[in-house]
């Protein structure tokens, strides 16, 4: 790929996925300043990586992989200082609390819960949920993450079950 093609692919990627990258960064870094640094790091990583993009996978798959992998490097480096522990989604238990019907919960409450689940997850599970929230199909999520679509579906089911227990105890379906 020539540098002009690399520049064009980068511009296309930012136009198509810029908003999604910003939302993804929320799932990896809570601090606003550090999140801005992460977003900029991702853009640099993306431009660098596109020199090797050969079209063997979709541009979206490539962008998601680079963005998530750079974010993983970011949180591993941060973990050295904080020693925060992560878990598989199967090992996460939400503390007991009175369930609130989803219709009555505020957006802030729901987002806080979603982010609190995501930030406790091992990077592979975190990536699956963030891609689900972006509306990426299970098949492509499997290709991006390196797991089968069945595993993707299981993880998403577990996530939604956790939300249901908290927000939709009266049978709101997912």
């Amino acid at each position, binding site marked *: 790929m020539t540098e002009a093609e690399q520049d064009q692919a*980068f511009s296309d990627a930012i136009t198509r996925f*810029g*908003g999604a*990258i*910003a*939302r993804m960064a*929320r799932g990896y870094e809570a601090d606003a300043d550090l999140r801005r640094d992460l*977003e*900029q790091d991702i*853009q*640099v*990583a993306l*431009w*660098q*990586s596109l020199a*090797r*993009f050969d079209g063997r996978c979709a541009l979206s798959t*490539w962008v998601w*992989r*680079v963005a*998530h*992998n*750079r974010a*993983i*490097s970011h949180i*591993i480096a941060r973990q050295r200082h904080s*020693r925060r*522990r*992560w878990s*598989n989604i199967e090992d996460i238990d939400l503390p007991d609390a009175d369930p609130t019907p*989803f*219709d*009555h919960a*505020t*957006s802030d409450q*729901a*987002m806080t819960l*979603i982010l609190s689940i995501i930030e406790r997850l*091992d*990077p*592979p599970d975190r*990536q699956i949920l963030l891609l689900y*929230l*972006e*509306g990426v199909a299970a098949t492509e999520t499997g*290709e*991006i*993450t*390196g*797991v*089968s679509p*069945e*595993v993707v579906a299981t993880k998403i089911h577990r996530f*939604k079950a956790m*939300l*249901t227990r908290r*927000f939709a105890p009266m049978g*709101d*379906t*997912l």
Partner: protein
Amino acid sequence: MTSLNDDGLRSLWRQDSDALGPLPLAEVKSRATAFNRAIGRRNRREYIAVAFVALIFGLYAAILPGMLLKIGSLLMIGGGFVMAWQLSRHTSRPGPGAEAADVHAYYRAQLVTEERMLARVGLWYIGPLIPGLAVFMAGLASQFDSTLGFAAFTAIPVLAILGVWLLNRRAAAMLREQIARLDAATEGQ
């Protein structure tokens, strides 16, 4: 509030999110170059630290009396060079192409690299300094009137080294747990 289904959750996820602050392309390229320079700068800092150690122990080797102190000083200089070389090898970041791998492969590779670096810290970080430190301390033994005083003096660097080694071993064990959990999840597919 929307209902708790796929569309509802995705709509919630998208609302109130900050837009990406796009970097101008020239800035992206400048930072990509700066990243390579940063590695050079980091290595330079290590070389400066080693040069400082070499200067101090070079002076010791020249002015301190006794063969043990001179040999110990020279060994410390050699150990410092080995440590800096190993540090630059162990802490290099993966190239841009590596980041296009799937997350399982990339994450596992990151954890394994980090675990190896921490688990072997005694070999590549502490080890090269031990011979010089031991000989240097042996050379200092004659300066102490009592064995107890020398033992107390020796205990300070020994405890510091032991602390560094134990902390790194503990961190490596935590990483091994993460790798095992990742492998178990992969095997379960």
